[in-house]
């Protein structure tokens, strides 16, 4: 019965609501159909495995990949390595720790405790501007007109990437993100090639920028990363390239879904939307509940055990590919009461939406702030908003899941 369930999850026709399939999946908490990945779907198992030092994120340790629709793409080692070395997302400590620490220096505490809070006014300005320019309130595509441009503008500003270049790296980012999508119909070799080329071009583009910043440092993260801090604390140029590529792409492809999923969910729950309009501070727990209810990253395909490990009595052989289905863990009734209910008032919300352990989302503070500002402002300013189409059309990607368009109407835009 569970046969073929992975295929169904990947099947585009189930994109708008994969949750019943996850429920099915949880009946076999360690799911394996002979050749493919070992799929882990319950909250506590995922949570434990994310803290398990016997699990590697480094694709070099992957051996048994037969039948894994994600092997070889961005998820695997091959395609990426030839273009750029793996980013810290796909490294184990100590390399992971070293790179993440250095990346954090210009980004967060203890060295840069005010960076994100300091962007609040900027963020607010961009949100206001985008809402001001939504145009005809009868025809708004929230993705193209708001949810996409907002985080992209922000990540460009943070890194110091010229916003005008967006059309160029937009397509590279799209291609690279698509490489993470286990589209069963795509030709893996072709996907590998396209992803590789996109990473190559993005790398070359970033190399030019970094070169420029070395000569002319600005107050942005690229400049600070390029400058380094002392002998031990400098990234090689290749490390710098893959780190900035990671930030640029992650800054592109995730928050857009968080915001869009958020607005979609709010429009499906008008009472919550109304409450948010009255009580803007509700947005803080609301975004946490969103990260549980509709996480932008549905699953982590990048883990492999260094040794045979046992999970719920099932032995997962060393080198196997493992998928941790965060979105399923988030709806696990053994962890959350009424997991399928969107309830921003729930008391106990420790979701997996931003991962956990050493690879937990690096950009989390920024993503949270972006989503909070975006949703509270949309709630405040859109007069009587409504969905044109439910469900909306989704993007192809099953891993980075979200609507491709979100058409809404409203009676007007408030000042």
């Amino acid at each position: 019965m569970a046969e073929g369930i992975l295929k169904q999850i990947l099947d585009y026709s189930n994109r708008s609501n994969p949750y019943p399939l996850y429920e099915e999946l949880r009946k076999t908490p360690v799911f394996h159909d002979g050749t493919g990945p070992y799929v882990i779907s319950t909250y506590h198992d995922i949570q434990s495995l994310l803290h398990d030092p016997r699990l590697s994120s480094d694709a070099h340790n992957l051996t048994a990949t037969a039948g894994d629709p994600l092997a070889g793409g961005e998820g695997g080692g091959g395609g990426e390595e030839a273009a750029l070395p793996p980013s810290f997302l796909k490294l184990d400590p100590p390399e992971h720790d070293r790179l993440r620490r250095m990346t954090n220096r210009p980004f967060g505490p203890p060295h840069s405790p005010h960076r994100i809070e300091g962007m609040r006014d900027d963020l607010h300005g961009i949100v206001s501007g985008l809402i001001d320019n939504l145009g005809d309130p009868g025809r708004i595509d929230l993705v193209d007109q708001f949810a996409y441009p907002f985080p992209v503008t922000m990540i460009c500003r943070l890194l110091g990437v010229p916003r005008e270049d967006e059309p160029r790296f937009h397509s590279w980012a799209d291609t690279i993100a698509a490489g993470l999508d286990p589209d069963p119909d795509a030709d893996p070799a072709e996907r590998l090639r396209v992803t590789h080329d996109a990473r190559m071009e993005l790398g070359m583009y970033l190399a030019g920028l970094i070169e420029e910043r070395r000569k002319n440092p600005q107050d942005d993260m690229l400049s600070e990363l390029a400058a380094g801090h002392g002998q031990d604390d400098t990234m090689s140029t290749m490390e710098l390239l893959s780190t900035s590529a990671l930030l640029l792409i992650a800054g592109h492809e995730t928050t857009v879904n968080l915001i869009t999923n958020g607005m979609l969910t709010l429009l499906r729950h008008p009472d919550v939307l109304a409450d948010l309009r009255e009580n803007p501070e509700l947005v803080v727990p609301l975004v946490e509940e969103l990260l549980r209810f509709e996480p932008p990253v549905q699953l982590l395909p990048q883990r492999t055990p260094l040794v045979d490990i046992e999970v719920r009595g099932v032995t997962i052989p060393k080198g196997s590919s493992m998928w941790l289905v965060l979105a399923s863990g988030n709806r696990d009734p053994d962890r959350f009461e009424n997991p399928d209910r969107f309830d921003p008032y729930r008391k106990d919300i420790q979701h997996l939406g931003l991962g956990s352990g050493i690879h937990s989302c690096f950009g989390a503070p920024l993503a949270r702030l972006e989503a909070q500002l975006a949703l509270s402002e949309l709630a405040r300013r859109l007069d009587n908003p409504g969905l044109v189409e439910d469900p909306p059309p989704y993007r192809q990607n099953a891993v980075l899941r979200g609507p491709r368009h979100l058409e809404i109407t409203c009676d007007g835009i408030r000042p």
Partner: protein
Amino acid sequence: MPDGSLDRLKREGRIVVVGASLAGLRAAETLRDKGFEGTLTMIGDEPYEPYDRPPLSKQVLLGKATADHTALPRRREIDAEWRLGVPASGLDMATRRVKLADGDEVPYDRLMIATGVRARPWPNEAEGELDGVFVLRTRDDGVGLARHLDAGPRRVLVIGAGFTGSEIASACRERGLEVTVAERGDAPLVGALGGVIGAVAAEMHRENGVDLRTGVMVTRLEGDTTGRVRAAHFSDGTTLECDVVVVSLGAQRNTEWLAGSGLGAGPRGIACDAGCRAFDVRGIVTDDVFVAGDVARSPHPLFGYQFLSLEHWGNAVAQAETAAHNMLSESSDRRPHIWVPAFWSSQFGVNIKSVGVPSMGTEIMITQGSRAERRFTGVYGYQGRVIGAVTFDNCRWLQFYEQQIEATAPFPPPFPTVDRRSDGQRPIPADFPDPSVPTHGPTITLSGYSPADRRMTFTPAGH
């Protein structure tokens, strides 16, 4: 058989909490959460509403928070009668009354004791009263010490290099103050974490400019004519000029007020069962007196039923919640407090965390990272099983090791881990000054996640 008395207790009973701090507050909140509608009285000898202590040796000394702004966040309304600024002075278990120092008496149906510990004072009373000599336990201590540090003393002497002493030294250095640490043992933190980790801590002190003196005792504090401290004399014959001294020699349990009450309370704390019910002096468990937090001493099945007293923030919270739950439950619904000890500290920019009972460990193995980089995980072994773990700037792995402890997993861990370095290939003696060796017996393992589905599995000895 439920006879309705529990319902009556919930509806109109009287619950008294003595000790209005972390454990007391969390217990009170839990009681209300569980539907207790009766009268709740909170008795505390300090004049303040419940506040948080860990910041006192961290943010407060750094000037990042003030001691009077560390009030504990409230989880909910508790609608209590507060008797603050007056100590409880006695207990009459027969008539179920708590006596207060002001002569009042407060009757109860259920009593919760959470009086915690206090700092062990400098043994020579007159020296301890010199201006500039501090302990650090209370908000008032924090205010006084922070003020003296603000004044820019020429040298601070910290006596005792346990967690609190080390944190104080770290804060002083961060403020650019000259600081000497005197420790009787061979290294900082040896008592809690052993000599192998103590050596790392010692390096941390020295690299951060602390004048660390180990294997030495302070024998006398000397004041000037105005009653201000001016120097300390050491057992090696040396003298140190200093104008602030922080005595950080551990804690004493606040149990004196229970003398003669018939409760099993003494210098080592108040003994209770795993359900937080206090023992009386005959070793018989009471049904209406519960204990939680630093003052409690309870048997832990996972650690050979040893009575553990823990001075850990997380323990106070978890034990208070369990005690409150049990206070309002039929005996069959009671839960054991089988919290796995966990502790954190932050000093010299390093985040230190431990789980389990490292001090029971005889061996340690560095399973991840490296001591030289001060980013590592050390696992403690005791008779072939994992008994504790410590991380320096590596805490995201700790949950795994906690599960290893709960499962009484074999030591040394037989599997490879990410970030295993060459110095972590085999265990070495953990090097505790005085290994306390509990008897070998049957084992208990823990499983399950939420308090409600936590399970113990009993394995007879010899298996």
